[in-house]
């Protein structure tokens, strides 16, 4: 029941990756990265439900918080031009 959903989310991740590589400006790539992170977190939760492993969901929580910090730092870098 849950494995086809995970495969579908993987297809969405591939479509978003195209924007991440093509993006003409820096903020375009950052928007692509932010969207990618959210979809990856949801895909991890769905995979945890598919294989009945709680540890996948725990990894998803940590990934969500770390990717938030990463996005904030890259946004600050784009804004000022330096850290």
């Amino acid at each position, binding site marked *: *029941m*849950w494995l086809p*959903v995970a495969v*579908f*989310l993987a297809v*969405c991740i591939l*479509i*978003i990756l*195209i*924007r991440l590589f093509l993006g003409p*400006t*820096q*903020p*375009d790539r*950052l*928007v*692509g990265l*932010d*969207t990618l992170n*959210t*979809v990856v*977190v*949801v895909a991890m*939760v*769905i995979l*945890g*439900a598919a294989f*009945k492993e*709680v540890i996948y*969901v*725990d990894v*998803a*929580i940590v990934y*969500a*918080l770390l*990717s*938030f910090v990463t*996005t*904030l730092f890259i*946004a*600050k870098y*784009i*804004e000022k*031009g330096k850290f």
Partner: protein
Amino acid sequence: MILNVITYIFIGIGCFFNLMAAIGLHRFPDPYTRLHAGTKCTTFGSILLIGALVIQSISTWVAEGISSPQSILTLHALIALVAILLTNPTSAHAIGRAAHRSGVKPARAVVDDLETENQKSKVKSQ
């Protein structure tokens, strides 16, 4: 039975919104409208997908109690959903502010209301 039907409906809507986010990133012209597609749609889609997981495991809650492995997985999925709900709008706001201050103009924009604000903050930082 009814829970299964509701679960499938939630999964369908959630997958649709995630696909719309992926397509909207390619259809919109500038970073601000792409933020609109990429942030809101994925937030709503993740709410519905994790909500489907919660609804599916309600029957196991009733049968096996709160401490079964399925219930623990659902509670952790809810914590992951809270993390997404807290961090996604915040990072979208930071990206929008950074894009505007780095000088990216909205596509086909006629009036930019934040133009003077932008110059003022530049003067203040120098």
